[in-house]
């Protein structure tokens, strides 16, 4: 256990404390309590920058379930450091912003901050885990906390819809990723990501290599909202704006990018990987920016722009993976620039998009609408917000002097390099990359301008707004100001960032290039008049033109009408599967108890009896049995008589007593076979159940003989006899089949191993304590279940939902 373990757990534990703090200090805005966590974590990770930038890594492992190779293993290298800084840094700013965004009186803040911290811990877990299964666990935890946060205003129908949609899509992808992880484990025999990377060469020919690759990419694509899974992100915008800024632009949606980057050393250089990542990425980049232009809601516009930017980064990771084809060499160094650009843009995107979301949040908060048809002319009323919007959206459009310009230029360089690739049949298709990238960038420029012009310039129409707009309080402005300052600072000092953060991350994505010259390019704002610069100039001219003439060409969007969209497809699948499963379930869930008993016992009979029959396991071997003593004979006789008596008893009381005879006789058998622990337990259990039965006695209906026809009774008789025979056969066959050596000799050492002479209890409390613990948990759940069923049941004439 090292400090990083604690750091991952701190937010999760604090999440549990938040409601308690809220009750103790009712006057406190809970945001202040939550704010401490990301700030502390951020300062810790900042303090690790010097060590990581000199290419050290920090690793630690904590045993969890050794037998399953499940370790809580953490690994901090350059790549995860970038993400941890984003998570905690943007996290601090978002929490600070939310303090002024969410009203203490109207919102349930303890829920909000508990979910938010839960997410923060989960996200840190994703980027710091070295164990595949632990990574998966945290991965799904981010989906769950995202679900809870999107549905934060759960009284709105759209919030619930968006939450469900994002949950179904991301968890669906998560499950496919889990299958991919299991395949990786099968291939390599280890769950550790670093060990898998080291084994890269030995698994590439494995038949599961490509399926694992595709499945893991599915997980990454769903999480990072890549086409065609991007449809969940716009609906996720129903979440409060701080959540959108944090989860759905800066961190969670980047988890897919993280996954791709993390597995590039494993899968990079494979043709399927190259084409899937770069192809899906570049198309998403285009499609997102194309769809963003048509949006009327500012947040929806930002959602599509996020999709587009994620696609851009994704495609860069894909293009860069070509560098791993055929090993590290000085010729392929040029391709690694794409990965470098991806990392750089990933940081830049978090700064400008986080700021933009906060700006839109401010507009929504102070004006009461996000509809660009109603907005306009806010420049004089909200000058600071306007400045922030200009900085962040110009950065997104790729204009100097903002950081987006630098990474956009590098993006163009990377796609132009891709055009000259000679691998993966890029000679034929390579030209598509620069073209799509360029067209996508034009739309990016257009929607970036729309944000600024439609919101802040143009005519001001007070009658369309709900509130009197005014500048936001200073508390809400601090966070976007910090982010915008970063946007400008990164433009002037990009090589600082490169030295401390990007280059160690490069080495963790491309370990093979550790000693290759020229892998860390020097970023400079001015390259001379080259093709990239002309492309940017073209983007500006055409983008501005498209914006001016939007009225004339927006009929293009009619080619993609609402009713034929992917969204409708999703709804169609959802409603079809709901109806189908209801039909199927209604067919066998009849609400008639005997039917359910048929299913249970019929299944047991088929499965167990079938297995016994097919494997020929029915071997009755009495040679090792002890002779039957007189007492045992008598007890068997008593039990048989009592059991037969139940069938013919006239009243329920008699049947109960006879059943008790059976139970106590079993206790006597335990005594005869010298098992005092079992005998004691059986005695007390029998007593308690009898009392319980007496309590229930009052509620039971009259005991009546079944007078149905033989046709109804025959299947019942058959199933009963079948079950009895099967149980006896299994019990007898157990003695006849000795497949394994007895393990009891191990437990006989209980005094040395566990300090107890009572073997039974040593097994229960020590050797197999996990079983016992879970049993008591199950018992507790059953107890709570009985309590709630009885105490909280609907009164007559009350809630009728269950009785329909």
């Amino acid at each position, binding site marked *: *256990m090292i400090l990083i373990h604690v750091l991952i757990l701190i937010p999760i534990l604090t999440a549990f404390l938040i409601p308690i703090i809220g009750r103790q200090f009712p006057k406190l805005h809970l945001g202040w309590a939550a704010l401490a966590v990301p700030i502390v974590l951020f300062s810790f990770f900042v303090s690790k920058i010097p060590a990581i930038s000199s290419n050290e890594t920090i690793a630690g492992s*904590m*045993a*969890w379930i*050794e037998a399953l190779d499940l370790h809580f293993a953490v690994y901090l290298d350059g790549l995860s450091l970038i993400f941890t800084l984003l998570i905690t840094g943007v996290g601090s700013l978002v929490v600070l912003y939310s303090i002024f965004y969410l009203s203490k009186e109207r919102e349930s803040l303890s829920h909000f901050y508990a979910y938010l911290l839960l997410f923060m811990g989960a996200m840190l877990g994703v980027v710091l885990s070295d164990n595949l299964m632990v990574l998966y666990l945290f991965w799904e935890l981010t989906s769950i906390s995202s679900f809870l946060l999107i549905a934060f205003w759960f009284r709105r129908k759209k919030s619930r819809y968006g939450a469900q949609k994002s949950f179904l899509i991301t968890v669906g992808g998560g499950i496919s990723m889990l299958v991919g992880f299991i395949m990786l484990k099968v291939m390599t025999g280890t769950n550790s990501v670093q060990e898998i990377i080291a084994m890269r060469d030995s698994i590439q020919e494995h038949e599961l290599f490509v399926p694992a690759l595709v499945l893991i990419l599915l997980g990454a694509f769903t999480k990072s909202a890549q086409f065609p899974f991007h449809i969940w992100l716009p609906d996720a915008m129903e979440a409060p704006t701080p959540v959108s800024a944090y989860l759905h632009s800066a961190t969670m949606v980047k988890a897919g990018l993280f996954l791709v980057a993390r597995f590039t050393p494993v899968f990079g250089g494979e043709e399927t990987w190259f084409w899937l990542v770069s192809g899906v990425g570049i198309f998403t980049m285009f499609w997102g920016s194309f769809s963003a232009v048509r949006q009327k809601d500012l947040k929806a516009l930002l959602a599509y722009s996020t999709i587009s930017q994620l696609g851009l980064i994704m495609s860069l990771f894909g293009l860069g993976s070509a560098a791993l084809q055929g090993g590290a060499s000085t010729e392929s160094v040029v391709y690694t620039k794409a990965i470098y650009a991806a990392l750089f843009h990933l940081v830049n995107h978090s700064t400008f998009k986080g700021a933009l979301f906060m700006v839109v949040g401010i507009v929504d908060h102070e004006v009461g609408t996000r509809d660009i048809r109603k907005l306009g002319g806010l420049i004089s009323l909200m000058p600071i917000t306007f400045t922030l919007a200009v900085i962040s959206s110009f950065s997104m459009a790729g204009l100097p002097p903002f950081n987006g310009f630098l990474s956009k230029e590098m993006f163009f360089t990377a796609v132009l390099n891709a055009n000259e690739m000679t691998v993966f049949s890029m000679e034929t298709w390579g030209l598509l990359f620069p073209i799509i990238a360029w067209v996508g960038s034009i739309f990016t420029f257009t929607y970036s301008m729309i944000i600024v012009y439609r919101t802040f310039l143009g005519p001001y129409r007070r009658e369309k707004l709900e509130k009197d707009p005014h500048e936001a309080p200073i508390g809400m402005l601090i966070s976007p100001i910090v982010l915008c300052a970063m946007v400008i600072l990164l433009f002037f000092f990009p090589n600082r960032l490169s030295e401390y953060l990007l280059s160690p991350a490069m080495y963790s994505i491309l370990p093979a290039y550790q000693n290759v010259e020229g892998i860390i390019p020097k970023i400079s704002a001015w390259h001379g008049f080259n093709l990239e610069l002309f492309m940017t100039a073209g983007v500006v001219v055409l983008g501005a033109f498209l914006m001016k003439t939007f009225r004339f060409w927006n009929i293009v969007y009619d080619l993609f009408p609402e009713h034929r969209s992917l969204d409708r497809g999703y709804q169609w699948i959802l409603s079809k599967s709901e109806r189908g499963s209801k039909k199927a379930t209604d067919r066998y869930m009849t609400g008639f108890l005997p039917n359910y008993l048929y299913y249970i016992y019929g299944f047991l009979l088929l499965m167990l009896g079938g297995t016994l029959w097919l494997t020929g396991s029915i071997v009755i071997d009495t040679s090792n049995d002890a002779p039957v003593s007189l007492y045992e004979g008598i007890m068997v006789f008593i039990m048989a008589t009592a059991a037969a008596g139940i069938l013919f008893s006239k009243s329920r009381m008699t049947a109960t007593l006879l059943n008790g005879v059976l139970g106590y006789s079993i206790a006597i058998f335990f005594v005869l076979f010298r098992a*005092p*622990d079992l005998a*004691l*337990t059986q005695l*007390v*259990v029998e*007593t*308690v159940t009898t*009392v*319980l039965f007496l*309590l*229930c006695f*009052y*509620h039971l209906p009259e005991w009546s003989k079944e007078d149905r026809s033989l046709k109804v009774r025959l299947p019942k008789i058959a199933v009963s006899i079948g079950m009895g025979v099967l149980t006896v056969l299994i019990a007898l066959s157990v003695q006849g089949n000795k497949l394994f050596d007895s393990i009891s000799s191990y437990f006989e050492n209980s005094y040395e191993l*566990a*300090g*107890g*002479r*009572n073997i*039974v*209890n040593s097994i*229960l*409390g*020590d050797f197999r*304590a*996990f079983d*016992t*613990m879970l049993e*008591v*948990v199950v*018992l*507790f759940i*059953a*107890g*709570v279940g*009985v*309590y709630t069923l*009885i*105490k909280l049941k609907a009164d007559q004439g009350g809630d009728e939902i269950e009785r329909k």
Partner: protein
Amino acid sequence: MRENDVILQTVSKVAVFIILTFGVYLFLAGHHNPGGGFIGGLTLSSAFVLLYLAFDVETVNAGIPMDYKMVAATGVLISVFSGMGALLFGSAFLSQTFAYFDLPIFGKTELATVVLFESGIALGVVGVVVTIMISISEDV
């Protein structure tokens, strides 16, 4: 229903203490002899059940004002968290240990962490059994 339970009540008053003592004994004896957390807990809860049978629920609740759901929850939490203690010492979840100590009156005594775990089990069993009994009996 309750006309003539003087005998039951008188016997219960004595028997309950015997059963409770026996339950505690079983709990403590479990390490080397028959007994243990589960069976000890069951015996303890049968004492409570006897009380509820002999007297009515209100009387017993007035005498022993305990929320058995809380008892059950406490028990479950103890047994889960006692397992986590091992993690602090670098061992696997739920590993138990024991050692011998020289105590003033008892002399050389074995103390084992499993007692903590088992006490959680016992409390869990007592809580659940009595909760179920009371809820069903009150549901008339």
